[in-house]
């Protein structure tokens, strides 16, 4: 059915110029609120039975326009709960929430700032998305006949050539083999429980999950010091449900929230300014000696 505004038939996609000429309208198939009537969420009427009760199911529907079965939704929830919900205030994004709490800021400010902070280079959203993209790219290349060893060697070499490090320095970037290697420690305690749960759900045998594990083995065969962290397993299990790396990025944006929130609450309930306070002497100044400003 064609849609019209006045006599103008709507095209599927407008150019920038056409969109600017229709400045009073926003054309969408995502949703619309009809006051006092209903809310349309993509193609669904949210206020008509059977009511959607699972938030994760609605979130995935909002991202992908697809509906998932009970086992899949359980898997998506497990990816969040077992992998990224650490109420550990030393982790950098969570620490922002703790600092907001100790500063007696608001919960929404602390949680949203910590969520934005989660889009980091050495952990969080940037390597998660890069890892899912890498699995997708390698999967395609393997189907075209490339060898895994060559693909990984190429990535390691390219990463060395750019001289952009992930951990420090100017213009830092995500590691060449994202998801393999973890700041601070080597063994990732999250892998076994998440794979166990995926096994229980009979969702652990997909191509991308197997590829993630194969890459880990291949790196070991190449005498690499890199070892798999949870990101490739999260990404593999997700991609195996017929979803894309971009879907995975959107899915992961809020995945730290269950860890962030209690960090805020913990700190806000303590006296103000007491979260790891720093004494004046613990500023390790390495700058120029004292000098006088020009008058």
């Amino acid at each position, binding site marked *: 059915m064609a849609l019209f505004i006045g006599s103008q038939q709507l095209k599927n996609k407008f150019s920038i110029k056409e969109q600017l000429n229709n400045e009073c309208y926003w054309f969408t198939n995502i949703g619309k609120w009809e006051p006092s009537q209903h809310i349309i969420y993509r193609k669904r009427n949210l206020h008509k039975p059977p009511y959607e009760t699972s938030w994760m199911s609605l979130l995935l529907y909002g991202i992908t326009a697809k509906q998932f079965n009970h086992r899949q939704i359980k898997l998506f929830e497990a990816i969040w709960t077992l992998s990224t919900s650490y109420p550990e205030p030393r982790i950098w994004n969570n620490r922002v929430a703790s600092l907001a709490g100790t500063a007696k800021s608001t919960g929404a400010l602390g949680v949203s700032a910590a969520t934005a902070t989660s889009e980091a280079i050495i952990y969080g959203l940037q390597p998660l998305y890069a890892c899912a993209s890498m699995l997708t790219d390698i999967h395609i290349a393997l189907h075209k006949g490339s060898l895994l060893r060559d693909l990984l060697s190429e990535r390691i070499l390219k990463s060395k050539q750019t001289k952009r490090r992930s951990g420090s320095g100017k213009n830092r970037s*995500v590691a060449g083999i994202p998801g393999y290697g973890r700041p601070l420690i080597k063994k990732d305690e999250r892998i076994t429980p998440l794979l166990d749960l995926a096994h229980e759900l009979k969702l652990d045998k997909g191509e991308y999950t197997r590829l993630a594990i194969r890459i880990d083995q291949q790196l070991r065969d190449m005498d690499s010091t890199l070892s798999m962290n949870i990101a490739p397993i999260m990404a593999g299990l997700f991609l195996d449900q017929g979803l894309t790396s971009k879907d995975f990025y959107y899915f992961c944006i809020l995945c730290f929230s269950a860890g962030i929130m209690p960090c805020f609450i913990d700190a806000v309930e303590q006296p103000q300014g007491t979260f790891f306070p720093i004494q004046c002497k613990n500023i390790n100044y390495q700058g120029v000696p*004292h000098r006088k400003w*020009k008058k």
Partner: protein
Amino acid sequence: MKKKSETITTSIWQEVASADNPFVAQRVHVHGYDLFSDLLGNISWVEYLYLLFKGEPPSIEQTKIFELLAVALANPGPRDLSVRAAMNGGVGGSTAAASLMSALAVGAGQHLGGREIFAIVLGWEKCGCNMPLWTQWLKNDSSDNTVWPKNDSIPGFDPITKQCAPPVKQLLEQLSNRHNLATINWLIQHQAQLEQHVGYALSLVGVFGALFHALNFDAEEAEMLYLLLRLPGAAAHSLEQKRLGWKTYPFWPDGIIYREPTIEE
């Protein structure tokens, strides 16, 4: 439990603790200058910003250019995407920080935002005043496989017009009348050629990027400063809308055209 203090390493800030309280500073030095007994009253806001980022005071000429840039950036106006975000905070009665965080999030983008400045300054670092290098670089540098979405516009050029906007011309004129900057002189000389190559007009953001480079700020510094220096307008407009209230603010009651013809029952 063994007590182990940790330290913050910095070459910017130094504190000497008061004798009676280890958490209270007796003296503070910034890049070697005593903040409260030497800098205050003697340093201007933009000189202090420059000092914080570069570690050295700006020259008189750099101070004048930076001042001009800071004023040009301070308020992008209420049609600007980042200011509109801040006003949404204001009009609904959100917290002050939410308004500024909204301005930052929206003003961070690759279209008119901090990431566009980052790309432009990176371009200057790579191409300098070399036209063949620029023509190579000005092919759209799309950021695939990063968290930054695909963007079709060319950094520094206005994707909706081929005619250079009056404010861009005025800014370039001000700069060439008052200062002798190699970067800006080159940009003025090659503007027509660049615009012809790209197919669009040079934008204000394009000139701002050139100015950050002329002031020796690298791409990361320029991105941060661009985000920071545009906040005053966002804050002022947000407060104005907070006081005016939601009834005078756009809502587009008939503005959503839902394309999907069928609703699942």
